[in-house]
């Protein structure tokens, strides 16, 4: 299999496997656990290599999963002592693990080139050259097999345990009362996340795993609040980012993993701006519309109140809104434009006159 197919395919598989789990981390407010785990597997990986006298994949894998388990347990235990809060517990454990890993690398592999870049950014560029062979047969890039298996595991995990995951995520108390153990589900999720992180680590490195886990799911969450929609959306975003990143990296001759993550960031940025309900643009527009509605209602009520008194001529002057009521120019503009558009007022020689519809609107507001 050539690199042009193997690399983007690996990227899509890694991103999909990560994004699937990311949904639950986002909803459980545990996004930073992904950060902790992806860094903490380093010493395990290295220790596995040391014990196996060389870069043995299985030993590295087992060591890494063990290190992840230690990290999850340690964070949980630290939090439970109630001497530090959850964020600090994570911040104490994972740098220690990562520092240990770095020391192990420098002391044990001074001659073997376990590159700093490979730890932080992975080496997805070369996946096509690392092939899986059984006997004489060349089965294609190993990473494709590994990541396909991880995707399958994650799909099965999320598919089979949807009910448990949903219940413990949204109402841990109810889950416990119904006999589902939130603790068990927590550890199961962490285990699957660890295995995924170990698999993805070699492709995209420690920090970028975090992005692929969290960011596509967060992007999906900006667009929908329904889990059934959020999960496929997140996978789609992850896969799209992998492909976009791959093309961009080839075009600009830069890091593929870095470009994939930048692409997840770009998609998130687009959603942050343009999401239909939570997006910044939609929000700003909604706020402006509400302001216009309220301002025109205020104007209608003001005109209505003074319609039949002797002060009518004075109070309905346009300039009076600024001078008498001390409305800002912006608000005055919003009010008059809004009320005119709704057909509530007419302009008559510098004065505002309430129409029949305007009167009705004012009466409704006052009656409320």
């Amino acid at each position: 299999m050539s690199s042009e197919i193997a690399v983007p395919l690996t990227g899509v598989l890694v991103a999909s496997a990560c994004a699937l789990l990311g949904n639950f981390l986002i909803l459980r407010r545990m996004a930073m656990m992904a950060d902790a785990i992806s860094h903490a597997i380093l010493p395990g990986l290295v220790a596995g290599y040391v014990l196996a006298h060389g870069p043995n994949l299985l030993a590295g894998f087992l060591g890494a999963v063990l290190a992840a388990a230690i990290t999850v347990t340690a964070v949980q235990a630290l939090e439970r002592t109630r001497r530090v809060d959850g964020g600090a517990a994570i911040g104490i454990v994972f740098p220690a693990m990562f520092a240990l890993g770095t020391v192990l690398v420098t002391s044990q592999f001074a001659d073997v080139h376990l590159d700093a870049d490979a730890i932080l950014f992975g080496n997805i560029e070369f996946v096509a050259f690392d092939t899986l062979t059984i006997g004489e047969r060349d089965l294609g890039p190993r990473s494709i097999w590994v990541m396909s298996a991880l995707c399958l595991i994650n799909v099965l995990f999320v598919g089979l345990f949807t009910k448990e995951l949903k219940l413990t995520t949204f109402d841990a108390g109810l889950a416990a009362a119904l006999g589902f153990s939130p603790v068990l589900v927590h550890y199961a999720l962490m285990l699957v996340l660890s295995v995924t992180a170990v698999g993805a680590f070699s492709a995209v490195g420690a920090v970028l795993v975090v992005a692929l886990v969290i960011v596509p799911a967060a992007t999906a969450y900006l667009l929908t609040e329904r889990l059934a929609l959020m999960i496929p959306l997140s996978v789609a975003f992850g896969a799209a980012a992998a492909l976009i990143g791959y093309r961009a990296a080839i075009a600009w001759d830069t890091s593929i993993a870095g470009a994939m993550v930048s692409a997840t960031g770009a998609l998130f940025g687009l959603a942050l701006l343009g999401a239909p309900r939570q997006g910044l643009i939609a929000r700003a527009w909604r706020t402006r519309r509400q302001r216009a509605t309220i301002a025109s209602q205020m104007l209608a009520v003001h005109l209505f109140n003074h319609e039949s008194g002797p002060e009518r001529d004075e109070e309905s002057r346009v300039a009076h809104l600024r001078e008498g009521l001390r409305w800002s120019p912006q608000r005055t503009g919003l009010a008059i434009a809004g009320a005119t558009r709704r057909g509530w007022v007419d302009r008559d020689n510098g004065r505002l006159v309430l129409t029949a519809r305007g009167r009705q609107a004012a009466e409704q507001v006052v009656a409320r």
Partner: protein
Amino acid sequence: MSGLLRDLLFDYTLRNVALGSALLGIVSGVLGTFALLRRQGLLGDALAHAALPGICLAFLLTGSKAPIVLLLGAGIAGWVGTMLLLLIVRRTLLSEDAALGIVLSTFFGVGVTLLTFINQRGDANQAGLDKYLFGQAAALVARDVITFAILGGAALLLVLLFSKEFTLLTFDPAFASSLGFGTTRLSILLTSLIVVAVVIGLQTVGVVLMAAMLIGPAAAARQWTNRLAPMIALSALFGATAGVSGALLSFTRQGLPTGPTIVLTLTAIVFGSLLFAPARGLVWDRLRQRHRALSGPMPTPVALVESEGSRP
């Protein structure tokens, strides 16, 4: 031992490394105290990662590799990251830890992309940006230490000037706001000072381990006292101790990189404090429980409350 002391005083390299690490420990210890008490321990982690694209952009734009230029870029990028973080937390349904993870990982991804782009250009001048990833305390020179001292001194002076405001902001932001303090502006100032600590740390311990420098000293100090001023002093002391002893350890033993050694020393201090600090130490807790289980009457509700220990 006396030989080591002599080296510490007179060996040029070791003196710079030890001084630089100690300064980092003090500054991040003081600022970390506020971050920890405001439950924003991981903010430093996010800011450190967010700084990477700033370093690369500063280099791409100016072509200069002078630490002060690169660190300025780092500071600006960290600051932009903070603003984005606030935006996400305030305007969307995403929680704070999701926002942290998003800013941290995407900024870092952009940084990696830029860094690789710079390296691929084969510019003879490019080497050396990588050192900000893992830090390179051993390469600190006197000029770096002076830069640290000025930056850190300015940050500490500001903490001193705003100590009342920061204390209020940390313990009762609602009250601070009702008194008419601009809490948003104050927390932006505090975060900007954390960016200064991060900038110092990037060169010493690197992007990944910076989180430990902000959280560790404060978390250890928290176990020893319930009062803010002693906590800040202890935190600075722990930070400096970890810095100096980490530097000494890696100087005396071959193959021990400085940054990770500092962090491991710090971790030892944290766990020592968690276990053995008077009053809050977990060992005493366990001993008290056993004592109570073996002898004495049933614990009264009051005793139960006390045995819960104080909150984080």
